[in-house]
């Protein structure tokens, strides 16, 4: 009968192949390769975390000069996204953008309005360089790797990530439905003046 059992194996092998993306989703990468300090990162050191970014930087102009190689890896990694969610709380992003990204002092991150662009590169730039009207620059204070984790999480707030990667509800007062339960917003850019709105 064991020989008969063998007949079932191809089926399971096929199933296994179908599941292969899972490996990426489930990887727990603890120590990111830390690149040698780029000359770019040195001048970006600032005395206080709360210095507004320079206004010249706009939505379109993603500063490719000292922009690290854009890293989409985390868009499919549930662990990294959940780390991003933790950092969003730890680094007080929630104090301006509200837990769940509904927006408060800062613009909402869970809707389809993107003042400075919705691509991971744009969001990375927004966090690293900061933006006018109050968004500080965190380049010196948040490691590149963690910034990418934050980027991935921020995109999950408006349902940009696959549902099996986006985080579930958190163990706190839950403002609104969990990130994994959100429908994908169709991001549309906004003229910069609205940046100061709300």
């Amino acid at each position, binding site marked *: 009968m064991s020989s008969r059992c063998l007949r079932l194996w191809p089926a399971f092998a096929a199933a296994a192949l179908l599941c292969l993306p899972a490996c990426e989703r489930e990887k*727990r990468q603890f120590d990111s390769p830390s690149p040698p*300090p780029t000359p770019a990162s040195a001048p970006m050191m600032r005395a206080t975390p709360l210095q507004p970014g320079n206004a010249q930087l706009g939505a379109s102009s993603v500063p490719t000069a000292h922009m690290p190689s854009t890293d989409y890896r985390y868009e499919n990694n549930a662990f990294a996204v959940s780390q991003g969610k933790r950092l969003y709380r*730890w680094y007080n992003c929630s104090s301006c953008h509200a837990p769940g990204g509904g927006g408060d002092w800062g613009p909402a991150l869970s809707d389809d309005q993107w003042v400075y662009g919705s691509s991971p590169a744009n969001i990375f730039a927004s966090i690293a360089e900061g933006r006018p009207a109050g968004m500080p620059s965190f380049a010196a204070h948040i490691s590149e*790797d*963690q910034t990418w984790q934050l980027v991935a999480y921020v995109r999950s707030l408006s349902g940009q990530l696959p549902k099996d990667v986006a985080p579930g509800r958190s163990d706190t007062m839950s403002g609104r439905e969990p990130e994994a339960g959100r429908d994908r917003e169709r991001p549309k850019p906004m003229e910069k003046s609205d940046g100061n709105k709300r």
Partner: protein
Amino acid sequence: MATSASTLRWLAACGSVVLAAAVRAEPLQSVLAPAGPQAAHLKDLWDVMLLVCTGVFVAVLVAVGIALWRAPRADSSQRASLPQELGPQRGARRSVLSAVVASTLLLLFLIVASVFTDRALARLSLHDALHIEVTANQWWWEARYDDAQASRMFNTANELHIPTGRPVVLTLRSNDVIHSFWVPALHGKKDLIPGRTSTLRLQADQAGTYRGQCAEFCGYQHTTMALLVMAEPPAQYEAWADHQRATAALSQEPQAARGRHIFMTTTCVMCHSIQGTDASARRGPDLTHVAQRQTLAAGALPNTPENLERWIRNPQHIKPGANMPPSDLPTDDLKALVAYLGSLQ
């Protein structure tokens, strides 16, 4: 026969090996080396239990041994005897009944012993007890020493100092998942459950350093979530506490000053706090007097400059999964940072 005899031999051998091992290593967090009244009560109960249970175990093995020894041998072809042929078997009934009665009585005795121990544990007086709020995090311990006047409260992490001979009341909370507070030399476990608050009362009678560690599985670094309890004579404790209340030392040594600047302007400041500076985040351990601690990262490493440097360079090599990111600081910046942290006596 063969079975039980060889078993006893095996157990004996095993026991001796184990005892040898036990004697050689000085027990850092042994249940069997109590250093305070609570742990002592538990040790007494253990002794009673061990005695009774060993007695029962031996009795059962002897009974089985005798049964195997005295029963005649047969082979499978031999016809089995039937109840009517075996007769009433009064002897067997009497011995079975008495064995059942005996074990019931022993169990009742153990229940009573256990209840009395429970009472004894509850009896620890709380007269001028020291109150400490312990909050568990993945994967380190945060301690806040309470005081009537807020100015005299202070925070520390992963290492508790307590005065000997004075009761201590620990208020236990968790910031994330369930952990369990356990310092075997002082008391049994108590879980720290998010959304709930529990308390643990203990007391150390002999001065000494007692190790404990998280006893409820709490994720990747459940392994590396140790804490040290230093029991000190009251005077020595008070001196330590006063020093803890003071804000961080401000070293004029240039290397340290540069390190301080680096600390404030890079990733460190996002999670750690140092009293008397701008650093006030509470995500990681309070570093106000970090140089005084014996270990780094909840018992991951002895606290030496080299280890500190290794730790900051890449915590993930030492404590995989810990919530501290690797650092890409240039080496000289890193050395300055270590110098600064080393100055935080």
